[in-house]
């Protein structure tokens, strides 16, 4: 019953029964409670799309699952994986946040290769990842010279350079054009079909299928008013 449930690292066994379970989760930022007693479940094979108004806690939930925010109450665990090694849930996750996590001074392929080596992927994974997001021909170019959409694609390619059963995405389609959104949906749907878990916070349709929507509500009534004029 440990809060962190675990599994073997790296090449995860693709099991249909896997699920990311959030139980009674409360997260506070300073004095404010962002999430209060939230329970939800993301099953393997179906994307969980988090929707809801600004400030509803979509980013907070995703960052809490990623282990980047302290959890005040409740727990987050991964069901249906081997339980021999005590890996944190966050170590089984890919996280795509608002920032792309790329180094402008490194080339596109150096960026991808760094994450592959750091996260335990292989050279084949890097080639496949760059190919999936149509970045192969940009390989020798410094990431600093890329357009916003190309940088986003490079950030997303991290999802494929090392295998993780859980993909956490926060507004993944920002600055992507239609074709690139299609590439993302293709990658995510392949991941789902292989028994992976996808949790995405979004305001726009992502084309992930199958998908289940979960609408988050603001916790405190006061905050649900449209941004009050700051003093």
């Amino acid at each position, binding site marked *: 019953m440990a809060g962190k449930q675990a599994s073997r*690292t790296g090449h995860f066994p693709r099991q249909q029964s896997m699920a990311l379970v959030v139980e009674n989760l409360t997260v506070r930022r300073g004095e404010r409670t962002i999430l209060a007693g939230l329970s939800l479940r993301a099953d393997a094979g179906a994307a969980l799309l988090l929707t809801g108004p600004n400030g509803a806690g979509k980013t907070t939930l995703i960052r809490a699952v*990623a*282990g*980047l*925010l*302290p959890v005040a109450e409740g727990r987050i665990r991964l069901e249906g994986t081997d339980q021999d090694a005590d*890996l944190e849930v*966050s*170590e089984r*996750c890919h*996280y795509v*946040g*608002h*920032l*792309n*996590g*790329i*180094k*402008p*001074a*490194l080339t596109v392929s*150096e960026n991808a290769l*760094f*994450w592959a*080596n*750091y*996260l*335990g992927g292989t050279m084949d994974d890097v080639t496949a990842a760059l190919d999936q997001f149509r970045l192969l021909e940009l390989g020798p170019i410094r990431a600093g010279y890329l357009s916003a959409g190309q940088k986003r694609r490079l*950030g997303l390619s*991290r999802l494929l350079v090392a295998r993780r059963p859980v993909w956490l995405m926060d507004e993944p389609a920002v600055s992507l054009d239609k074709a690139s959104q299609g590439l993302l949906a293709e990658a995510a749907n392949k991941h789902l079909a292989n028994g992976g878990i996808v949790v995405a916070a979004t305001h726009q349709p992502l084309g992930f299928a199958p998908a289940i929507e979960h609408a988050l509500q603001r916790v405190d009534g006061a905050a649900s008013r449209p941004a009050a004029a700051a003093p």
Partner: protein
Amino acid sequence: MTGFGVLLARDLKLAFREGGALGTALGFYLVVVAMLPLSLGPDLNLLARIAAGILWVALLLSALLSLPRLFEADHEDGVLELLAMAPLPLEAASGAKALAHWLSTGVPLTLLAPLLGLMLNLELSAYPVLVATMLAGTPAISFIGAIGAALTLRSRRGGLLIALLVLPLYIPTLIFGISAMEAAALGTGGAGPSFLILCAISLASLVLGPVAAAAALRLQLG
């Protein structure tokens, strides 16, 4: 440990490719050491006596210049939070980054020091001791500095704050570095023990620095 090596190699590549931090540190070291004789006058005996102290203090200040960027750059582009999630513990990642800082700042500054010693009329016999004590002492600058860099990650004007936090912690390194040099110059003995204490300070910071820096980083990310 592969992740450690990968991160170390990446940071070294970035340090030498971007080059700005290293150039600034070396240039600052040169300028500070060049200005002191101008302010003190061309008294060669005086310069020789204070050379070790000047070289050490200026080195500490120069190494401090690039410390604020140690974690800041990775924080700004979102790499830091991904490092925090990776299987490699954040302690090891902090250690790799501090080690990269030492290799890309502490070592080049140490290698520049003998050249600057010429400008200060440093005695020839002191050069090997100068380089040895600096090589032994500078790791503490990077590894203690990593704690300061992590603590001030999200504060504006963190650079000044780092100096206030970290410079007092450099005092033991400074004292034993200079006392080893003086003892060697006078031939009184005692250079050995001072040098060993210098090594001990560096080794302790090697162990404690990454742990404290990682704890501070987790606090800053949360």
